[in-house]
């Protein structure tokens, strides 16, 4: 139906020194000190550049970035409902396809980037995200993962890890571990059932060059792509705001987070440590896990050990689920 339109071609950067100096996500917003998602936004914006349209489903990066009708973006940006970012992005992409085809828009197809939180990506936003991926629109959907509904006051989401203390999973006598469920596997939700998708990757704010190059690679693919970006939240996870990158790095060193690419069916892994540290090393940096017993931490370790046998590829839960115990 649609004829091919000219798209962007973004070069990989070789080192942090070669990252563009220009800022497209500008100061003046109200994110917290040490905000992981804000750092993600800064890096993604540098990677995508000015010939881009960004969409912000409701979440921290909408609420803390826009206030009093102001916004910090140097490219066009649009709020979407937390539910429908994938669908609004589909409409924008479809519009550009037809406007370019009819000669009504003269430029190349802009980079269309959704910056969704975990809720807007794989919980309430899952249906629209899946619709976009299935239909093959040329859109990059980014899930900046701060592992909770943070903007509403740190409530559990499907990305919140087992054992986390959130305001909807407070630990108590009857439920000592707080959150009892293990998280959804976000990249697998995309990889597992969307034949139009050729590129899915995970990235971390601890490795900015890798993050930038994954954004660029994803944007260069024609068709939909998905990035899952680990974006620690000092407020929600309860750690010192100076330690965002340290916490993100420790997640990789303990296997709590794995950086990988899935490209046309092939997995490649980045930043794999020679030997994984115990997950306890990571968990003890954050007050959200402070209530956990050794038995709980062992359960988390068992889950991570199983997952690390084939990172990125889903495994059956190696521990008892909440209805099995």
């Amino acid at each position, binding site marked *: *139906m*649609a004829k091919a339109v000219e798209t962007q071609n973004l070069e990989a950067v070789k080192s942090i020194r070669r990252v563009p100096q220009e800022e497209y996500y500008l100061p003046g917003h109200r994110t917290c000190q040490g905000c992981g998602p804000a750092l993600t936004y800064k890096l993604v914006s540098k990677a995508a550049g*000015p*010939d*881009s*349209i960004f969409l912000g489903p409701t979440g921290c990066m*909408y*609420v803390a970035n*826009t*206030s*009093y*009708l*102001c*916004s910090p*973006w*140097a*490219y*066009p*940006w*649009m*709020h*979407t*409902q937390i*539910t*429908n970012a*994938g*669908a*609004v*992005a*589909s*409409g*924008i992409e*479809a*519009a*550009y*396809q*037809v*406007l370019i*085809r*009819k000669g*009504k*828009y003269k*430029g190349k197809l*802009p980079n269309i980037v959704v910056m969704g939180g975990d809720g807007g990506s794989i919980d309430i936003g899952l*249906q*629209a995200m*899946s*619709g976009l991926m*299935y*239909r093959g629109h040329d859109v990059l959907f980014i899930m900046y993962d701060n592992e909770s509904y943070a903007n509403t006051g740190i409530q559990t989401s499907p990305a919140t890890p087992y054992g986390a203390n959130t305001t909807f999973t407070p630990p108590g006598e009857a439920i000592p571990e707080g959150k009892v469920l293990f998280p959804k596997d976000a990249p697998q939700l995309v990889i597992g059932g969307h034949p139009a998708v050729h590129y899915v990757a995970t990235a971390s704010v601890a490795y900015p060059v890798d993050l930038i190059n994954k954004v660029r690679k994803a944007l260069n693919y024609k068709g939909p792509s998905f990035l899952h970006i680990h974006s620690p939240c000092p407020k929600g996870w309860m750690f010192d705001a100076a330690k965002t990158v340290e916490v993100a790095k420790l997640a990789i060193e303990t296997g709590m987070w794995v950086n990988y690419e899935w490209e046309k069916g092939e997995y490649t892994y980045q930043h794999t440590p020679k030997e994984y540290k115990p997950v306890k090393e990571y968990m003890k940096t954050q007050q959200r896990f402070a209530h956990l017993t050794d038995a709980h931490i062992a359960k988390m370790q068992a889950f991570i050990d199983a997952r690390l046998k084939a990172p990125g590829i889903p495994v059956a839960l190696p521990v008892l689920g909440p209805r099995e115990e």
Partner: protein
Amino acid sequence: MAKEMFLAGCSAAAHGAKLSRVEVISSYPIRPYTGIMMELSKLVANGELDAEFVHGEGEHAQVSIAYGASAAGARAYTGSSGVGVTYAMECYSPAAGGRLPCQMAIADRALDPPGDFGSEHTDVMSARDQGWIMGWAETPQEVLDNTIMYFRIGEDPGVMLPQFCCQDGYFVSHIPGKVVYPEQSQVDEYLPPFKNPHPLDPTKPVSHGPQIYPDQGPAIDLQRAQAFIDVPKVIRKAVKEYNEIFGRDYSPFLDEYRTDDADFVFFLQGGHARTARYAVNHLRDKGVKAGMVKLRFLRPFPTEEIAETLSKFKAVGTVETSTSYGGAMKGGNLIHEVRAALYDVPKPPAVTSFMAGLGGEVVTLDEFYNMAKVLAQAAKTGKVDQYVYWVNFDKGV
């Protein structure tokens, strides 16, 4: 000379959209509106219409796709029926508040439960406060004409509002009627290409929909209300020019039938007006001074026109075809707005309402005759005994 065709309401809507050169279409199947998308998908597949046809994963996505496309500067079209209309409810306010003039075709269907395919206006009447222009067509011809007119009205730079272009499910959507099919060149003359003044364009960056704080809310709400205050004059001009170019005789807001010396009128919107016209003819044959007033736009509601027109009669009966459970008049919605519009009239008519055509029931001629008896009595006494009559259930109807 324009050709004549025989089209049902669904096909008429699809051809109205094609003649309007819609650029992005978003679909999802639900009866009875589905026929619109079936027809449009053929036109796109045949290459008769150059548009992106996007299969939404639900009505919520359909409306989101449409307003996203509108934000990027394309003319966008979608549609739905029944629970599909209510499923998309979250997305109506962002489209209207974003001043994104996409169009949504509605072929009404009763809501669940119980599951019912029939036409009832409650589906989209539930969305009447979301800031969309809306009104009903009576015939396939009016469906096609409204589709084109609504784009012209909604995309007016002083309006910039989305539109619900409504028709009754089945009674209009599935019963073919004669349609005078406009020339494309006439439509192109009437409807210029859509131009979004603030599109999402990297060469002119803008932000759509940043947060506000409560102190900024009233001013923005006022702007949206003001836009609606200005819509009627745009409608008058758009309808007048449409009549001139296409040789029609639509009145902008109220279509009156045999009202010149009428004692009472049926007041309604949509397809049941067809039956009402026949009922009025038969009543007139028997010497009963009945008439009909058909509402063409529910939003903006033509308050002044209603006050002026309906105050000519002794009694008015609204035929509701929708529900407002527990509302002021304990029946439908039309009567609320009609009575409000008549409040300051020096000698208002007696106004009552009839719950008819619910769940897709046909409103029969006999039912109109029974309503006429109630209205004739009200015209004689100058008052109504009840605010609402459930037709076929209440005494006298």
